[in-house]
């Protein structure tokens, strides 16, 4: 049978740059810092549809904070923010090396994405709950969760707060509003909406935040979360961290060739915007705006944090096989630490000398904590969680057959 049409063919999107190519972000549109206006928190989502196609930015090239998202963080608060990001980066570097030394089995770092979670944490209140992925440990660092506890979990030693049951880095702290627990992609998004709806049903004032990566927006949970958040106007802030790469899969595979991730919120009538994820001030301002909106009952906000994963996806990943080694350096939104540091120096609240001194202090502090954790034990060395713990926590009370198995195991 002949057809009047040409044969169809399959469209497979390709990134602009593969190993060996020269990175080119020239068609990546970046508005000038300060260009995007700050609407009132009770704004009608329809009135800010353009924000899903622009990017909220505060810090300009000169390191000045400009525009009406510039916010009101004091110099002391900004220095603290810089310190959180420096701690997280140093912590990551030490733990990455520890993994390479066999002291833990697996690690995931935040390199290039530190501002997203560190700045966001400062916009929340005690009692709020984050449903993060594996790359938002800044929420813990910035809320004072002890590094030693984090390392004890990474090393799976006898002091591991989760008793050797959970993977390294999938931290969990009810007290610090860090739900985590699940490593399965996407689940956090819809669960955060459920948690937020429960807060509304209970007449509470707490809000929830959901976190997802660009790649995982393809998961059902993303779409289900948006349906429920929209229908029930859940007090939730939904965050997409678009770091450009889902392991080897570039963000266009989840998004297709058009639109933005934030624009997906439009079909659901959700206030949707994009923010420069490497701009500490912008992330903080947007987070505060969205949290306020949720807490006042104005409904959910969808935030796309535009950033770049400068390191490997995990310690099992080798990015050089799928992307150019030069791409991270060519990323046009720069490095979040450098940008905040430049800003603080520009406003006369920081200096290269103080920075170098802070770097040395933080390295000494992280190293000292690391020694403390390693003195307890590392994976396969030192004091390990007790086999007793293996049988606890399966049920509220241990069923008889598990009591028997535990006894048979000699504990």
């Amino acid at each position, binding site marked *: 049978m002949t057809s009047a049409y040409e044969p169809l063919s399959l469209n497979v999107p390709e990134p602009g740059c593969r190993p060996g190519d020269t990175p080119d972000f020239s068609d990546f549109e970046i508005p000038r810092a300060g260009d995007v206006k700050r609407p009132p928190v009770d704004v009608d989502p329809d009135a800010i549809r353009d924000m899903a196609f622009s990017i909220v930015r505060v810090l300009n090239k000169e390191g000045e904070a400009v525009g009406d998202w510039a916010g009101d963080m004091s110099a002391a608060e900004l220095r603290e923010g810089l310190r959180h990001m420096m701690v997280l980066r140093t912590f990551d570097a030490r733990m990455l090396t520890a993994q*390479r030394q066999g002291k833990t089995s697996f690690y995931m770092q935040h390199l290039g994405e530190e501002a997203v979670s560190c700045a966001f944490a400062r916009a929340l209140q005690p009692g709020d709950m984050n449903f993060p992925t594996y790359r938002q440990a800044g929420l813990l660092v910035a809320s004072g969760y002890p590094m030693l506890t984090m390392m004890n979990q990474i090393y799976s030693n006898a002091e591991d707060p989760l008793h050797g049951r959970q993977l*390294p880095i999938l931290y969990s702290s009810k007290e610090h509003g860090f739900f985590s627990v699940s490593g399965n992609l996407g689940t956090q998004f819809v669960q955060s909406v459920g948690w937020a709806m429960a807060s509304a049903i209970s007449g509470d004032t707490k809000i929830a935040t959901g976190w997802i990566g660009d790649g995982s927006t393809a*998961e059902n949970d993303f779409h289900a979360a948006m349906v429920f958040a929209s229908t029930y106007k859940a007090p939730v802030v939904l965050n997409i961290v678009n770091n450009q790469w889902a*392991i*080897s*899969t570039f963000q266009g595979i*989840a998004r297709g060739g058009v639109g933005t991730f934030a624009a997906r919120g439009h079909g659901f009538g959700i206030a949707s915007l994009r923010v420069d994820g490497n701009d500490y001030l912008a992330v903080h301002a947007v987070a505060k705006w969205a949290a306020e909106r949720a807490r006042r009952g104005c409904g959910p906000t969808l935030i796309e944090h535009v950033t770049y994963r400068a390191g490997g996806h995990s310690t099992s990943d080798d990015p*050089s096989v799928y992307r150019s080694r030069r791409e991270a350096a060519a990323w046009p939104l720069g490095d979040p630490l450098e940008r905040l540091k430049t800003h603080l120096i520009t406003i006369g609240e920081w200096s290269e000398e103080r920075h170098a001194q802070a770097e040395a202090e933080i390295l000494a502090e992280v190293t000292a904590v690391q020694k403390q954790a390693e003195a307890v034990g590392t994976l396969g060395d030192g004091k*390990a969680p007790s086999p007793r713990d293996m*049988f606890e926590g399966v049920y509220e009370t241990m069923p008889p057959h598990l009591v028997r198995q535990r006894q048979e195991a000699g504990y």
Partner: protein
Amino acid sequence: MATEILMPALSPTMEEGTLAKWLVKEGDTVTSGDVIAEIETDKATMEFEAVDEGIMGKILVAEGTEAVKVNTAIAVLIEEGESADDLAAPAPAAAPAAEAPAPATASAPATPVETVVPEDPEIPEGTEMRKTTVREALRDAMAEEMRSDDSVFLMGEEVAEYQGAYKVSQGLLDEFGARRVIDTPITEHGFAGLAAGAAMGGLRPVVEFMTFNFAMQAIDHIINTAAKTRYMSGGQMTCPIVFRGPNGAAARVGAQHSQDYAAWYAQIPGLHVAMPYSAADAKGLMKTAIRGDNPVVFLENELLYGQSFDVPVMDDFTVPFGKARIWREGSDVTIVSFGIGMTYALEAADKLAEDGISAEVIDLRTLRPLDTDTVIRSVMKTNRCVTVEEGWPVASIGNHISAVLMEQAFDYLDAPVLNMTGKDVPMPYAANLEKLALITTEEVIAAVKAVTYR
């Protein structure tokens, strides 16, 4: 003080690697975080960083050395003033964690039994054999089927550009192009449903799940769509599809990434379920799976991917579904297992032979159809049976084998059938707990001694 630099484990399952390149030489000063070597694992080439500061005193393993075991000392770091020449011979690699206490052994010294390893009936006598990893065997099977049938294609996360998260699809994108080796968005439910649609539309999809744990999302399409389409359509519509990927525990991947789904899928009418142990079976069963007109759940294992077995060099080697393989013949007890469980079964059989107990070891190879005839025939000879699997104890494959033996070989049994399984808890992460949660060879040996009254 001199410190040893050990071969690092760069992924949870890495046991050995190639020391591809030293980036420092003896006498160089290194500081923490310096990249000192490049190491190739089965997954990728990784940079290896120094954790301590010091001077490279001595390089103990030359670059280019292959198969360097994890935790082998590869270099010695010294401090200023120390001399590499003063160094004592490096201490041996750290001893492995203490083994579980050995079960009580038989009192009388036993006479070791002869081991009889039967030929695989699928392979003609005299066929040339080639050492192949399970990983390569699976790739070869897919490539052969893709060459002979243009309707076969592979889709899943990371299968194309990255060559598979566990490198099973190595080279397939180069040979078959992006039309037939397709990287998908991250949505197991989405691409399993999509592939089911493509199968119903006349293609033969092979769907890779990065692990079967992630297929929990897709289970509605696997069971409610793929397995039941033929039945519900009155036989008009079929769904010839293969769902494949690693299943069960790897190492240190915790509760959500270590589950064994053998018993789950084996329960479903309409599905075929394969769970090979050897590379030859992985290849032969995969080719059968792709050619068949029934939906197949093909359960692989991450720890087996890197293991090598003899694979026959044949133009078109297939293994039929529903035919168990007797790996070794024996007369005292039948050990029934499948997949990675075979590792424990065979190791136990070896040790039992030293104690004078002759174990017949059966690899089920496929769980649906299930070759109960071979098991029954064996038990009629040995009168005793122990089943071995990594999954949980309740409603396990072993439970089903026990029931079949109870119904069809009751009069031949001289002891209760024992089902050896993992412990009834979610998989813990910590290395010591994980080891305790899984089945061990010692537990299999203890079970055999219990049913043989030794």
